[in-house]
């Protein structure tokens, strides 16, 4: 970094104390921890993400702030204060072992150009631990001759967890969608079926820390009539996920509305092949909602954190517990190919109309 550049950055240290307008322009972390990406990558800009990342022992790749701008003239909207893998629980069918991989504090494995070919891939970090890619994500929409391809910014890193490598990946799409995924690969430990159960801690500060609410959105049908029910989560606790109910966990801010004056949400939708439930209390629910506490970071303790405090229009944290059911097959004998699980955070009434259209 040039001396002038460093000076400019240092001047931003106090930006946290600035009023909203000035704050929106601030950069809260240095290169290479700061990533900013506008979309589309060619032509006039329509949307833009900016974020900070860091890699921790155990949690691996953490998003320590993410802001989205839905239009070049719009204000930045804060979405993520801190998003991380908070535990990775791996119980085997025999009952033992029952691994806590984040709780071991595994480090990251350095990447090379085979992992992250560039351009457009760029390897980041002092230990080459993060791959940044900006890539085509396929069709965004299509109707007959009208069509558009989408793009996404992807950051990923690898947790070296003994016989397994876990890919911890965060994707920020041009349409405001965020994807959190965990991929498992490596060498199996015996032929026993097991579950890789990641629990993510999502401290989502939509439009700032204050006054967020989380609701469950559940579809049901009586006769031929379907209905979607929104139920606010009033106090800390766990919530089950329902496949037949297309259940979502929606976060909203008390004051954030779109151009049509509708309340804006981001909705968490599990991307699953099944839901793991084990004897450990922290695995009893797919979704947990807790009040923010600086020290409440361990996924294996979320059932203790959820002790009945009010969470409606507070600074809330959403926890999502997913899983991969790994039935060992002969194809795993040498090396297990990557398997994925995760979730999608999708904007709902953030844009006033279809983004990236026409």
């Amino acid at each position, binding site marked *: 970094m040039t001396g002038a550049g*460093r000076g400019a*950055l*240092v001047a*931003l*240290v*106090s*930006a*946290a*104390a600035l009023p909203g307008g000035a*704050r929106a322009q601030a950069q*809260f*972390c*240095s290169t290479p*921890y700061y990533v900013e990406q506008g979309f589309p990558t060619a032509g006039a800009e329509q949307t833009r993400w900016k974020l*900070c990342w*860091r890699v*921790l*022992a155990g949690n691996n790749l953490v998003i*320590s*702030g993410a802001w989205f701008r839905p239009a070049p003239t719009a204000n930045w909207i804060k979405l993520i*204060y*801190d998003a991380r893998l908070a535990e990775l*629980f791996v119980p*085997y069918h025999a009952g*033992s072992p*029952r*691994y*806590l*991989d*984040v*709780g*071991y*504090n*595994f*480090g*990251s494995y*350095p990447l090379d150009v085979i992992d992250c070919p560039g351009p457009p891939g760029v390897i980041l970090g002092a*230990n080459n*631990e993060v791959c940044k890619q900006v890539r085509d994500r396929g069709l965004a929409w299509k109707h007959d001759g009208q069509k558009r391809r989408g793009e996404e910014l992807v950051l990923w890193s*690898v947790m*070296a*967890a*003994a*016989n397994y490598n876990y890919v911890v990946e965060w994707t920020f799409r041009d349409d405001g969608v965020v994807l959190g995924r965990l991929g498992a690969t490596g*060498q199996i*430990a*015996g*032929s*026993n079926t097991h579950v890789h159960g990641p629990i993510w801690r999502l401290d989502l500060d939509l439009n*700032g*820390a*204050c006054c967020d609410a989380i609701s469950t959105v559940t579809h049901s049908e009586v006769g031929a009539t379907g209905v979607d029910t929104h139920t606010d989560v009033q106090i800390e606790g766990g919530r089950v996920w329902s496949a037949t109910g297309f259940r979502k966990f929606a976060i909203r801010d008390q004051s954030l509305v779109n151009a049509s004056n509708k309340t804006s949400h981001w909705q968490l939708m599990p991307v699953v092949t099944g839901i793991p439930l084990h*004897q450990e209390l922290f695995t009893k629910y797919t979704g947990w909602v807790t009040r*923010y506490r*600086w*020290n409440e970071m*361990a996924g*294996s*303790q979320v059932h203790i954190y959820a002790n009945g405090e009010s969470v409606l229009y507070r*600074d809330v944290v959403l926890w999502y517990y997913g899983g991969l059911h790994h039935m060992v097959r002969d194809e795993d004998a040498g090396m297990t190919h990557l398997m994925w699980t995760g979730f999608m955070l999708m904007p709902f009434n953030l844009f006033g109309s279809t983004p990236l259209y026409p």
Partner: protein
Amino acid sequence: MSIRRASVIVALAVGMTAPVVHAQAPLPLDPLTPPERAVAESVARGDRRVREALGAEAQLVSIQFVAPKAADAQLDVPARRHAEVLFFLPPSNAGLAVLVDLEGRQVVDLVRAPGESVPLSGEEVERAVRLALADRRVVQLFDGVLPGFRPERLPPGIRDTSHTRVEAIRTLATGPSDPCYRRRCVVLFFRVENRYMHLNQVFVDLISNRVIMRTPQK
């Protein structure tokens, strides 16, 4: 179980003299710099209440950047930089998380945590491997001749993986009859030339310093 610090705690010999000075000042969300890590540990260890809570056997587990929000947070990021200094307290199988204000050079909060939520320290991993390699049942797994294993210190991901080594993973107990129940157990993975041997057979309870052998899975 929590000791919440409501206000400024202590003036320390290492602190209160001047703010932390950096050759290149970090931005609010940057990872900790080496000088900040040193300050964090020094401030934490220098705090009277932390010292009293730690006792003689405490182990330093980690020092990490943390961005605590104020109760009425209206800012995008905290106005000051903080670190969490995490200790493990073996006698009580508990953790102690110490929140240090790096600019004020003071402890602003300390919270006890269940041992289950405290990651393993490098010292614990090395001890588990030492205990296992000294156990004749483990030696017998290798026909009486150990292949020159080295314990894998944290973080394992940034070093050469081709050497003969022992890795470990934290594990929970199956139930109350499991010797690891409410203990601090690891499973050891013996890696020789990038192949794993005798997986899920050797467990070590780091509270009793006991090696537990399990029947290999089919």
